[in-house]
């Protein structure tokens, strides 16, 4: 994996690279070099949006070419570019639209937040794909599927996968952009009752039914570029300018990914991932359902049947599996379909209930036993702002990490 670290200060840039270490092939773009690269980029953008760019001028500038991930320090005020003082957030949209770097991380935007209690998302105000602080880059949760970290937010991606998935997302949109989102992603009809009002909002244009909304709504509704520039890009794309079409697909992919992460999968009401599924239906673990290690094996499961009981998986889960996996960080299932499965309901009724009294902890990516009987402290319950039936979740509350807002954690609201 190739990573580009962008910073206005060389020293800070080195710190970031050191935090990543040998986990990836890292290059830096710092200080004056970054200033020059941005100057070239902005000149190209101006020409492109004025309709004066030749096709080669739509191509990604060399300084940004060939990377999987860009890490942009949020404080860029020392760059000395004229005009308004620059932050990472102000350039993220342009990097997305006018370079081919698939995955963009905003660094140190809010150094006082390590874990997002609100939406289990990271910094929901960031225009980047993910907002991290420098110390997070040392955490193996971002790099290694077999991480051992205590602090390991479930909402963090594995970065190599995230970049690969984004490229696949863009390819998906290149061929299916004009199809209804609902049909192209395979939403079951029952999902309409399970999507929150918030989740339905980008699909509700007022012109057609949500089920008929096309992917264009995610491009049109983007906040990453000013509306006038979005309008220009759309016009150029419809005129057949390849560079503009590429920008449109990249922006739409980012917005759709964000929507799915927070409003479709994040609520676990429409799509559900294996650990949350087991938290609802432990009998799916099969003969290991009585053992918390059996539950935790699900978290690391990468191949079907993901540590779940083979027969139950094939009979009930495989038919409900979400097929377009480039849009989700791991295997997922349509919850409305599983919820309507009378046999699964019957199995919950009939189960002997010889299960650990455990809950899935969102900050540790593992199940932890409730109570004080084990080696760990009892998990704490908190209330997210997610709109859905599963607003309350659990954390282990790892020392020396900032969980915000604290007021939403029961027992930590002081």
């Amino acid at each position, binding site marked *: 994996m190739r990573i580009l670290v962008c910073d206005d200060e060389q020293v800070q840039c080195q710190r970031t690279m050191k935090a990543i270490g040998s986990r990836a092939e890292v290059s830096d773009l710092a200080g004056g070099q970054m200033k020059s690269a941005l100057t070239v980029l902005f000149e190209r953008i101006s020409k492109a949006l004025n309709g004066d760019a030749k096709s080669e001028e739509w191509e990604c500038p060399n300084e940004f070419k060939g990377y999987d991930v860009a890490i942009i320090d949020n404080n860029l005020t020392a760059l000395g570019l004229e005009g308004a003082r620059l932050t990472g957030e102000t350039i993220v949209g342009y990097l997305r639209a006018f370079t081919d770097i698939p995955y963009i991380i905003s660094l140190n935007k809010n150094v006082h937040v390590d874990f997002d209690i609100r939406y289990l998302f990271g910094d929901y105000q960031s225009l980047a794909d993910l907002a991290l602080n420098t110390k997070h880059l040392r955490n193996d949760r971002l790099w290694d599927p077999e991480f051992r970290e205590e602090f390991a937010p479930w909402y963090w991606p594995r970065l190599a996968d995230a970049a690969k998935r984004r490229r696949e997302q863009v390819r998906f949109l290149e061929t299916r952009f004009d199809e209804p989102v609902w049909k192209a992603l395979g939403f079951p009809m029952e999902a309409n009752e399970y999507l929150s009002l918030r989740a339905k909002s980008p699909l509700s244009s007022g012109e057609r039914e949500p089920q008929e909304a096309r992917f264009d709504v995610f491009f049109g509704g983007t906040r990453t570029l000013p509306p006038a520039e979005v309008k220009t890009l759309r016009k150029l794309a419809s005129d057949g300018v390849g560079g503009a079409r590429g920008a449109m697909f990249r922006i739409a992919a980012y917005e759709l990914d964000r929507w799915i992460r927070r409003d479709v999968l994040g609520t676990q009401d429409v799509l559900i991932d294996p650990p949350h599924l087991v938290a609802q239906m432990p009998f799916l673990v099969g003969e290991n359902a009585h053992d918390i290690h059996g539950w935790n094996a699900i978290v690391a499961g990468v191949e079907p049947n993901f540590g779940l009981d083979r027969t139950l998986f094939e009979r009930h889960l495989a038919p409900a599996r979400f097929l377009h996996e480039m849009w989700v960080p791991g295997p997922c299932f349509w919850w409305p379909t599983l919820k309507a499965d009378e046999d699964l309901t019957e199995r919950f009724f009939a189960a002997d209930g010889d299960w650990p009294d*455990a809950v899935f902890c969102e900050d540790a990516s593992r199940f932890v036993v409730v109570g004080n009987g084990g080696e760990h402290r009892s998990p704490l319950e908190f209330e997210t702002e997610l709109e859905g039936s*599963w607003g309350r979740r659990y954390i282990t509350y790892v020392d020396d990490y900032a969980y915000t807002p604290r007021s939403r954690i029961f027992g930590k609201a002081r």
Partner: protein
Amino acid sequence: MDPSINELLLAYARLGLDHWSKESQRVKRRARAIRLDITTKIDVAARAVTRPFEPFAATGEPMRLIPMPCKQNRVFAAFFAPWIGRDGLSFDLVVLSEQGAPFAFRFEPGSQYATTAHGYDHVQMNESLGQRQVELDGAVTPLPTRYPAFPIPGESPVTRFLAMAVSMHGFPRGVDRILDDAFKGHALKRKTYLDMTAQMLGK
């Protein structure tokens, strides 16, 4: 896992408050018209649950009604209030129809006193709340409030509450779904109360 009435009431109250917060102004106006003291905040509901109204105590919390996550045929809204009587924890249930009078029921423990024939957990009609301390504006009066006194299976605050919940939500495809939402992600808790409900109903 041991069942806990406070935990169950709080989890249920949270669903009720969420339901009420999304309720239409038309329903809320109807509730205001009969001057119900309805809790809208979880900390107040938590107090009503952990320190229930005690009609015979000199001081204490006032009786407050907690919304139920419930809308059934001809039931406009429903509320409940836990309170402690001579024989233990009772639940008042208030059902609001769209036009008519509010209906109240009491889910009460069996009396420990030999002088009464109500020596079993039961539910009876009510024309006021608590031990007649809280008036219910617009209630039909007089009502036969001592009989009928329908028996409730079980003899614990948890089964008494579950009986009330089943009476409003049904079973299956009723209380089981409520428990699913109330204890989302905590399978053993959900299973514990589900099994108690099934056992209570002989299922």
